């Protein structure tokens, strides 16, 4: 993972890449990119389809999104119709990665650091998210970062 991060940082900052190195883009390779042309929002939408499946069955009439917004932010969004009023209801939970823990932020100024079983569940969920998104959306090996054949 460290190797992947290091190379990616080099790619993003443009530092440490020599001409002719193994990190290069050929026309042939670019044709292998089925996601070419998608925006970042589109990619997040694809990731979220996987994310929504991580927490078990979605109740009838509900729509759920769970996705990584940026390196320090995860979002859970759920929307449903109220049975009595027919009004569309929604709830958003934001998980913010801080240095001293993971802060869960909900509407109504409710916030708390994840702990106990909830923290364990969250960690399993984002690990699964990473494994599946890396494989299924970006077609890369989660352990090495290499493109899958």
């Amino acid at each position, binding site marked *: 993972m460290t190797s992947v991060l290091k190379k990616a940082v080099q790619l993003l900052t443009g530092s440490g890449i020599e001409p002719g190195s193994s990190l290069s883009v050929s026309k042939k390779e670019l044709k292998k990119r089925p996601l070419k042309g998608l925006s970042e*929002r589109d990619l997040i939408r694809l990731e979220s389809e996987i994310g929504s499946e991580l927490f078990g069955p979605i109740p009838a009439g509900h729509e759920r999104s769970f996705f990584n917004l940026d390196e320090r932010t995860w979002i859970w969004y759920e929307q449903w119709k109220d049975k009595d009023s027919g009004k569309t209801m929604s709830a958003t939970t934001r998980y913010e990665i801080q240095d001293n823990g993971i802060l869960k932020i909900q509407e109504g100024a409710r916030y*708390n650091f994840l702990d106990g079983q909830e923290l364990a569940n969250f960690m399993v969920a984002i690990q699964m998210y990473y494994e599946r998104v890396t494989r299924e959306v970006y077609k890369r090996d989660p352990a090495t970062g290499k493109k899958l054949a």
Partner: protein
Amino acid sequence: MSSYTLQPDYEFRRPDFDAGEVDGAPDIPGWIKEAKAQFEDLSMANQARTEALGGRVLSQAETSRSYEPIGRGVDTRRAEITGGEAVRRFSNTRAFDYNEFAAAERQRSAEQIRQIEEAKRALVLGEAIGIARKMELEGYLFTN
């Protein structure tokens, strides 16, 4: 999935840690509040005992009894004799138990360390996803 939104139409308000808005925030640990509350209870208990004894200042020996765990050494007999709100409070006071307090503190420290470690892991995963996304967007193929 048209329902999802990256920017809800309301704003999340960040808690004011310095003002102690969040229990368990790093600068105002919950256990300090608990300990403080326990000491306040003890203070009330001692005041109640003083009142029960007709205003006489308690001796060190008498005072120290209230530091023993509940069920041992808490003098409910005087409370029964005098009655009154403050004295009833005394009879219900849970005495401070250092061993219990220290054990709770150790458990809390372990949980805090776990939370910090898990936050580090979560950050690494978030970074890795962001990089994979960025590489896809910018067309880099990691071939090494």
